[in-house]
């Protein structure tokens, strides 16, 4: 087997909100289409299965230089990842991610949130970020931050009712995500404030 083909370089992980992507720099071979294959190895494979590697078939012989590995990174353990290149019968050595990847390091962004005043009802609509996500919603009457209230939202299906407002004062809301699998939270979203208007939705 001819291994003159250089191994893929600059292998790295982009992981945001529990979605994990492996990326690498393209291997350039003039006039040829280079294809790539990705494999992963969890802590289980390293310690109990002879350091075996498992191919990701959606990323076998692909031309893209990115692979969605989210489905395979499904435990909070350290994973190894590697990529190799193929051009016709020529095949490179494996390029391996420097260091391990553990999903506990994913970056968590504040949730998209829409606060609605539906008559005297204070409602919030939250972005559906997948089953791993819960939300902590804080709401308070403007100026009375010390009497802030909290609601934990475990399932995002519909609009969440937070409170019944009095006419006049503004009510403010902010939210953060929480991922129990890694026991981490995002920072809070921007605060949004609304005021009850008898019967009409009011957006400030």
């Amino acid at each position, binding site marked *: 087997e001819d291994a003159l083909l250089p191994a893929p370089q600059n292998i790295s992980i982009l992981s945001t909100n529990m979605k994990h992507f492996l990326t690498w720099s393209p291997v350039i071979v003039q006039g040829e289409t280079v294809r790539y294959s990705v494999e*992963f190895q969890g802590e*289980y494979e390293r310690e109990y*299965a002879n350091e075996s590697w498992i191919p*990701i078939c959606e990323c076998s012989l692909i031309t893209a230089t990115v692979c969605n590995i989210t489905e395979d990174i499904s435990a909070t353990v350290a*994973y190894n990842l590697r990529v190799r290149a193929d051009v016709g019968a020529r095949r490179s050595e494996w390029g391996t991610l420097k260091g391990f990847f553990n999903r506990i390091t994913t970056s968590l962004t504040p949730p998209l949130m829409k606060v609605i005043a539906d008559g005297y009802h204070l409602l919030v609509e939250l972005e559906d970020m997948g089953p791993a996500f819960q939300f902590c919603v804080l709401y308070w009457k403007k100026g009375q931050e010390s009497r802030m209230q909290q609601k934990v939202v475990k399932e995002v299906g519909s609009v969440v009712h937070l409170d019944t407002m009095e006419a006049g004062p503004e009510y403010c809301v902010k939210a953060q995500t929480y991922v129990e699998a890694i026991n981490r939270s995002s920072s809070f979203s921007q605060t949004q404030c609304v005021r009850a208007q008898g019967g009409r939705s009011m957006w400030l």
Partner: protein
Amino acid sequence: TAGNKIFHFGSCRISVSVTEIRSGFAAIKANIQARDPIRTLSILSYPHSLHKVKSSDRCCITYQLFNFYVDKVFKHCKTEDSYVNRKISSIANSFLSVKRKLGQCHEQNKCMCGQESTEKFKQILANYEGLNVTSAAIKSLGELDILLDWME
């Protein structure tokens, strides 16, 4: 649901991503159980169901079972189907993560093993060793939902 569940075994408290394990298992359950011709035999439930285990012994039997699956079962379940292998890997790595947490409880004497759990686990091992290793491993994997149902 958010997917994780907190299990309280006396003073041992662990978080388990049950939904992830269940979804991984559900994806391959039919495939795995189809590879197990002897459906009348059970590894986990013979002669008595796990439900017979006293609550004081639940932590220890859970700890022993996670060790059993990580140490003995998963490695003998490799198939020719790479999708199935990927799902087994995801379950195995989740089990390893839980095994570690239970191991910490065990080291801190929060997961004590009584006579009953020791006997029950001996029975499970005897059931397992009564079959050839691949059949026993595939059957054990096929019974994963019995373990998860009992835990929940």
